[in-house]
């Protein structure tokens, strides 16, 4: 082991002083650095985006929806925080020649009924973006058209007063009403919304509910099932980008391969001398693999450090303000980037594997195939 440590240290240091080896070594280091950095940052952004969208969904939408609003027994199902009856429908806002579809929804925690002095005015919490686009502020009123199955025209106009502006991750504007008001303007079937302590245990909670309320089978759905397609698309996007960016590591590995090959070729006579002096082939192999690996590790190390610094910088709200980037489109706050330990470990293991392969094969090939020729004379 002393031999491996001794020669590895000497060869590693010599690379930085040897002009012919310095440039290829720097190219290897930089290529590994760039590929690891890019792969980490892109995957952290993808993960950050997924987590932020997921959190937004969990914040704004029910975790479980029951299409049956009959009396149900949710007692002693521990994971449930609250449940409430709800309604959902659609209306249209027409402003000049502009037509906009609006989602109408009853929300349990809105209770503006006591403030209502005019029964023809409906109070709603409305998406900020919609208010901004239409120059509306709190207490302004405007008219929307809603379906009216009981009237002759089958459509009617109602007046909405802005009671509050809210953030929304919905793709279309939304107006939340109190349940009592919503009953007068939304004619769809009532349903029950449940909020959970741990939304990630929604499947288990559904099973518990069905065990107690067998009639609900087939009428209950959780947030994961509803958003399954969205999460699958995000996963597909993440995997595709991950595979695509892995090619950067592959390309970087080819520079390590050629660098190791040229280093071994240059040290050919020294390898022969080591064998003549009695060094074990495995030890010589270990020396050259370690030299290449440690050299590449420098690139990997700086790639990880820069990725971590970039992640922290981008995650801080200040950098978004400084750069004046508008990220409100997805209804998420801050730059969508999260340092993911699982991605860090996967990318690190993949990079180490590729570096080891690129370092091991040229060395092993050379020592196993050419060693006898190396140690012997070519002619008489």
């Amino acid at each position, binding site marked *: 082991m002393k031999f491996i440590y001794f020669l590895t240290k000497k060869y590693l240091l010599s690379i930085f002083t040897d002009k012919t080896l310095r440039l290829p070594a720097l190219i290897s280091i930089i290529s590994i650095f760039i590929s690891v950095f890019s792969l980490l940052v892109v995957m952290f952004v993808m993960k950050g985006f997924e987590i932020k969208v997921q959190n937004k969904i969990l914040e704004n939408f029910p975790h479980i929806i029951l299409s049956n609003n009959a009396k149900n027994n949710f007692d002693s199902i521990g994971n449930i925080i609250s449940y409430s009856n709800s309604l959902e429908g659609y209306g249209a806002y027409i402003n000049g020649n502009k037509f906009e579809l609006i989602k109408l929804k009853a929300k349990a925690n809105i209770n503006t009924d006591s403030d209502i002095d005019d029964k023809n005015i409906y109070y709603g919490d409305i998406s900020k973006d919609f208010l901004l686009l239409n120059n509306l502020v709190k207490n302004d009123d405007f008219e929307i058209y809603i379906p009216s199955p009981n009237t002759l025209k089958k459509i009617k106009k109602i007046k909405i007063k802005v009671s509050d502006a809210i953030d929304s991750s919905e793709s279309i504007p939304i107006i939340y009403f109190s349940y009592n008001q919503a009953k007068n303007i939304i004619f769809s079937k009532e349903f029950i919304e449940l909020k959970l302590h741990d939304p990630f245990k929604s499947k288990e909670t559904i099973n518990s509910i069905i065990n107690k309320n067998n009639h609900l089978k087939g009428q209950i759905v959780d947030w994961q099932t509803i958003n399954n397609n969205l999460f699958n698309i995000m996963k597909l996007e993440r995997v595709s980008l991950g595979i695509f960016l892995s090619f950067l590591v592959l390309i970087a590995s080819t520079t390590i391969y050629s660098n190791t090959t040229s280093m071994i070729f240059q040290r050919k006579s020294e390898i022969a001398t080591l064998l003549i002096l009695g060094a074990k082939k495995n030890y010589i192999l270990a020396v050259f693999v370690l030299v290449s690996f440690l050299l590449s590790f420098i690139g990997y190390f700086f790639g990880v450090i820069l990725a971590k610094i970039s992640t922290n910088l981008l995650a801080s709200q200040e950098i978004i303000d400084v750069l004046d980037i508008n990220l409100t489109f997805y209804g998420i706050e801050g730059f969508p980037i999260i340092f993911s330990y699982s991605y860090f470990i996967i990318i690190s293991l993949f990079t180490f594997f590729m570096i080891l392969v690129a370092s091991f094969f040229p060395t092993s090939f050379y020592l196993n195939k050419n060693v006898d020729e190396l140690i012997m004379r070519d002619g*008489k």
Partner: protein
Amino acid sequence: MITLKNVTKKYNNYDLISYNDLIINKGDFISIVGPSGSGKSTLIDLIAKLNTCSSGEIKIFDKSINTYDDKRSIQLFRKEIGIMSSTSSLFSILNIRDNILLPLIIHNIDKCNSNFEHIIHKLNLKNLLDKSSGDLSSGERQRVLLARAMVLKPKILIADEPTANLDLDNTKQLVNFLRYLNDDFKTTIIVATHDDIVSKSSKRIYELEK
């Protein structure tokens, strides 16, 4: 200690070198001489197990050279035989001290149990220890190679043209050291050489013809 019996070496399937039978005893100092192309270096390589013979048998320490094939025995073989071959080189990444100590590091032997101090003194290398191999003259380089070959106290020293490119003073210094090793340490020495000073200093001469 070393025996050669009916040894031949073929190159390219037609160019054949045949060697007369040879017995080298413990404490021998033998010079292998002959014109260029007569097979001096080939014979040195065959005895040092840097090449394989086409037919015949070479025995070293009363065992066929082919028995030193597994990892452990080849390492012991290399430890017992100091080789100063033209295929050996000095490491440019190491200073002279580390170059000489390299066999000790390879075989994981403590410096105290080696010939290091004694050889450095005898070969007058003390002032060169911190130098790089690129800073050495031919004579100094040959002395360093000899010091490295002898640092493990091998029983046999095999040297291929040790005095090539050396001036008279350096040649005499090197030959004196070989004689010293042979006389005082009873090291068996086998030298392939063109140099009369070396061959005249040896106890026996093994002459090859083309």
